[in-house]
């Protein structure tokens, strides 16, 4: 018994001694000289904007030049000058503006229905764990299902008017918004809720004064994803069957082999989604200020 107790420290010292010898034998790497700062500084805003614009212009210029030199087949790919001509005709003959407005309207309506409905359902999960736990697997099953596959049925049921496009946009947005809101609701600080209860607050007061302000930043953060999904939903609805909209217009152009007109539709969609994205950023700021004071 006593020998073991004696031996232990001796072995330990021997081991440490060996380790110290080994450490002192290790070669040390030469110090590094770093003349630059550790983290690259933020670039100037104008420089970023110029570079981005430069890349876009260079791409279009290359496309134009390669098409003029017959390297790119304009039958399949068209070229910027032809796209521009098509755009001027499309916008001046009248239907293009109407189509853009149609897609814009169905996207916005689907987005609003989806995010408001999703946020309300997601927030409602705070009130009952049983209700939340029962709903969760069902929601995940619905989310896993490709909702675009529902499009033909929705168009058949709701007709080829704007209702079916709004329904498609809503369907794409709402589940993801519910799931994101639910995640945020579960992350609400329990101690903050306890504090409110200690002040004699009702559940409704805890909900409005802690749960909603805590989750609002997550709710609005998923708006950015949702707006893109809403646009996709609206376009797919138009592909299935529609009288109006950019999706219908692109399909019409494709069926008549008018590649330039397809590009006009695609670029218009790109600009539309960019504008919508900026609008959503503004909406985020306004909502955060309104709810958090």
């Amino acid at each position, binding site marked *: 018994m006593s020998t073991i107790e004696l031996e232990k420290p001796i072995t330990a010292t021997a081991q440490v001694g060996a380790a110290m010898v080994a450490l002192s034998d290790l070669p040390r790497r030469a110090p590094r000289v770093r003349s630059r700062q550790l983290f690259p500084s933020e670039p100037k805003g104008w420089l970023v904007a110029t570079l981005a614009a430069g890349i876009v212009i260079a791409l279009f210029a290359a496309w134009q030049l390669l098409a003029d030199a017959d390297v790119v087949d304009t039958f399949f790919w068209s070229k910027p000058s032809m796209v521009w001509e098509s755009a001027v005709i499309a916008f001046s003959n009248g239907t293009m503006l109407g189509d853009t407005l149609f897609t814009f309207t169905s996207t916005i309506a689907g987005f609003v229905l989806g995010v408001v409905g999703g946020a309300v359902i997601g927030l409602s999960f705070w009130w009952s764990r049983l209700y939340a736990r029962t709903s969760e697997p069902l929601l995940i099953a619905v989310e896993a299902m490709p909702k675009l596959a529902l499009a033909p049925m929705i168009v058949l049921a709701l007709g080829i008017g704007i209702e079916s496009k709004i329904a498609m946009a809503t369907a794409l947005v709402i589940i993801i918004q519910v799931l994101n809101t639910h995640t945020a609701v579960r992350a609400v600080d329990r*101690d*903050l809720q*306890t*504090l*409110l*209860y*200690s*002040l*004699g*607050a009702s559940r409704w*007061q805890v909900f409005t*004064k*802690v749960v909603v*302000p805590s989750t609002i930043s997550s709710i609005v953060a998923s708006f950015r994803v949702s707006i893109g999904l809403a646009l996709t939903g609206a376009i797919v609805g138009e592909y299935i069957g529609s009288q109006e909209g950019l999706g219908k217009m692109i399909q019409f152009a494709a069926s008549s082999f008018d590649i330039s007109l397809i590009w006009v539709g695609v670029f218009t969609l790109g600009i539309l989604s960019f504008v919508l994205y900026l609008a959503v950023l503004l909406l985020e700021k306004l909502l955060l200020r309104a709810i*958090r*004071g």
Partner: protein
Amino acid sequence: MTITAPAPHSTQQSDLTVTNLTRIFTAPDGTETRALVDASFTAKPGEFLSIIGPSGCGKSTLFNAVAGLDQPTSGDISINGSPIVGQQGHVGYLLQKDLLLPWRSVLGNVTIGLEVSGVSKKRANEIALPMLQAYGLGEFVNHRPDQLSGGMRQRAALLRTILFNRDVILLDEPFGKLDAQTRATMQEWLLDLWDDFQKTVVFVTHDIDEAIYLSDRIIVMSPRPGRIIAELPVDLDRPRKPAVVTSARFIDLKTEILDLLATGQN
């Protein structure tokens, strides 16, 4: 420091009586944890009572029960003789964390108790603003909590507790996370506040010096299962000077508490 803050109306003094309070937690597998056993004490009106004990002695369990956040297994809790078991909103409760709402300004945070009680925002602000001025938060009224130092956050949290306007307040290690110097400043500040408002204070701490320096009386608790093992009156004159910590009586009290805590361990 002389304070000229308006005293909150309807201020009266109340006592808090805890009788044979026991809390046993039962895990899903049936094992029982006796967090608090047969605790009885009375905090007299306007008294500063400290509770000291090792981790896991049931101090937080006791506070949660008094605040009505947790249902005790048995026992009674009453304020001025009327039972308050299971009822929230009878006492001001400062939990271990400051729990300031990060999206609200300091003003919005300290008025939340009044807001929950149904006082209009305007009226609450009228009451709170002079208080914030008087107690050293005047220049931070519109700041968000993340812009404040630890000491200032704790002041805001304490003022929120005072502005909830209850006669009994529970403070659960309010200065536990502060550095030694800030802690000393905050102790003086708390004594000023207590002097002005004459609240009945129940104060939990791990710090023996802090307990003796601040309190009229100290309750010593044993580790789990938590029970009260001693009650010591602190017979040091008020107002106390920081130098009191070197006085013979102070050292005697401290020795006595250290002994009690050491015996309680076994």
